[in-house]
């Protein structure tokens, strides 16, 4: 290197030094959001891979195999739901319920995971499911593509922790979501993991200003984890109808408190 380039290099570093000291803590969110995007990308890769196997089983007419792959496949989707559901067309196509259609389960427009779930569990058959399976696979691939190109809005990411807990409160505690397969505890785990991930990523930023808050939230996450663990079976979870009333109450209380507490995260991080 010539003296000139050395000087230039040194001045780059000096400049870098001054610019690197971000003027505000607002930009401290850059790292957690970037890490979260990588987390989401990994989940999407897994979702596409699992959906390929799941839809292949459906198309092969293998009801038992398809049933065994349904809940594990959904795990990755449920973990990233606050981002996945930003696209209303794909959200409807992948994860809408029979209630969203005029003729409910009989409506030919009823698509996605829950249409297949209905076929597998209620009808015990893969009849008429080929096009649904093809569409589902195309949709999760489209979802991956769209999210890859998307700069995640920080308020949606940080707000996502509460959204996931509200989702659990509204659709899992009641057993509404997986009403045919009763695999709600799997989805619960996915939502839980997704919320916990967001919390863990921003935790260092909140810990300084409000250690009591962080402790309370971590406590409730731990309660859920311990309670859910009682229902582990193999790689997954027992049927939702095995959940005792006592445990449902414990979960419900922890989830509702978390939903409320986590909804203050945006404000705490200056995103409201």
């Amino acid at each position, binding site marked *: *290197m010539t003296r000139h380039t050395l000087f230039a290099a040194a001045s780059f570093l000096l*400049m870098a030094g001054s*610019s*690197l000291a971000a003027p505000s803590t607002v*930009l401290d969110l850059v790292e957690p959001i*970037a890490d979260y995007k990588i987390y989401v990308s990994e989940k999407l890769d897994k979702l596409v891979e699992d959906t390929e196997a799941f839809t292949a089983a459906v198309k092969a007419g293998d009801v038992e195999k398809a049933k065994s792959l349904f809940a594990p496949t959904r795990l990755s989707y449920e973990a990233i739901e606050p981002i996945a559901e*930003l696209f*209303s067309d794909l959200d409807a196509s992948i994860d809408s319920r029979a209630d969203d259609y005029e003729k409910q389960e009989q409506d030919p427009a009823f698509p996605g995971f829950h249409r297949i779930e209905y076929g597998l569990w209620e009808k015990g058959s893969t009849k008429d499911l080929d096009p649904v399976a093809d569409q589902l696979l195309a949709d999760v691939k489209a979802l991956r593509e769209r999210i890859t190109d998307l700069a995640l*809005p920080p308020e949606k990411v940080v707000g996502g922790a509460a959204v996931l807990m509200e*989702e659990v409160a509204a659709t899992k505690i009641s057993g509404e979501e997986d009403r045919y397969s009763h695999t709600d505890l799997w989805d619960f785990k996915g939502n839980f993991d997704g919320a916990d991930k967001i919390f863990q990523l921003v935790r260092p930023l909140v810990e300084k200003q409000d250690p009591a808050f962080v402790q309370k939230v971590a406590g409730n996450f731990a309660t859920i984890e311990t309670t859910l663990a009682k229902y582990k079976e193999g790689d997954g979870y027992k049927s939702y109808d095995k959940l005792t009333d006592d445990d449902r109450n414990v979960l419900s209380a922890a989830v509702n408190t978390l939903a409320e507490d986590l909804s203050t995260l945006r404000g705490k991080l200056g995103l409201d």
Partner: protein
Amino acid sequence: MTPAPSSSSAPPQKLMRLALGGAVFLTILSGGLFYAATVQYGAQPTADVVKVEVGDKTCNPNHLSVPAGRQTFEIFNASSRPIEWEILQGVMVVEERENIAPGFRQTLTATLAPGEYRMTCGLLSNPPGNMVVTPTAASDASGDAVPSLKAFIAPLSEYKVYVTLQASAFERKAAALAEAVASGDLNKARDAYQATRLPYKQIEAIGGRFADLQSRLDVAALYLEKHEQDPAFTGFHRIEYGLYEQNSLDGLQDVARHLSEDAAALKQRLREAKLSPDYLASSASLLARRIADGRVDTGEDLYAHSDLVDFAANLVGMQKMAALLAPAMTGDALPAAQQLQARIEALSALLDSFKTGDAYPDYTSIKADERAKIKSAFNDLANAFEAAGDALGRVAA
């Protein structure tokens, strides 16, 4: 630093559209955030709650007009099924409330930018309602505002992801290059060399700013006392020298191994680097200037003559940076964003014009007058990034 050029004429309409076109997607999403940042110092948020009743077939009212800014909606489910209510812009969900039971009310607060929206009304087959968000004094005033630092969280995060992925690719390819060199296969090593260079060049604007690593990874023999015979001649160009000048792998094993180690170190540094909008812009400006001032005339890849491939990869990385920053460069920073986009397109078109099919020619075939054009295009780009950096340096904390 040279003074920032003033844009003498407004870019044509088409360019303005292009400048914003690729980023519309982002803008839609960050719109809520951005407006949260920009309307707060304006008028007080509207205190009135907007009431919407969702029936079996439609919303009532089915057409809404609300002022821009923070707005609270109360949704009453008058239908016989549980519903979700969403505010949509295109296919994107701006805000939503899920699982509103029949007979129940829920409220939702959204910060909306002026524009046209739709709202879902119960069954997915029901026609969506329309919502027009009208500009207010506050939202108009925000057009002249200094962009908010908050608006840069998303673009900086996305750029960080990009840099992280490219740095990982660099690390992987460098390890593969070391293997190819060790295997003794010259052609395989040449392919691996080019594949390794690509991700490095794409993130060079940021990655090249670690002077210690840069002097090991990408030092040119020209700057060393004994040129190719200097013991400090190492990294990419030492390997290039062996592969393309000496047509030999002799002595390259250690060099390739060190390159691979430095690639891993670079990835770690980039992971820890704190990025700010003006740091990105000034880094790109420095790189474009370095290329214009030196590499275009002398060439950097003296043995492989693949300079145009390097330039194109450098441009891809800077293009990524500009595309991410652009949507957040509002108000005063808008002209700088437009100018930047125009300069990138000009350089991109110029480099493309040398291509035959997908391939760039040997750099030795590029004549002096053509090099002068490349030099000038990189200089323009450096100026545009510098102006962008100045505008971004004024971003409010």
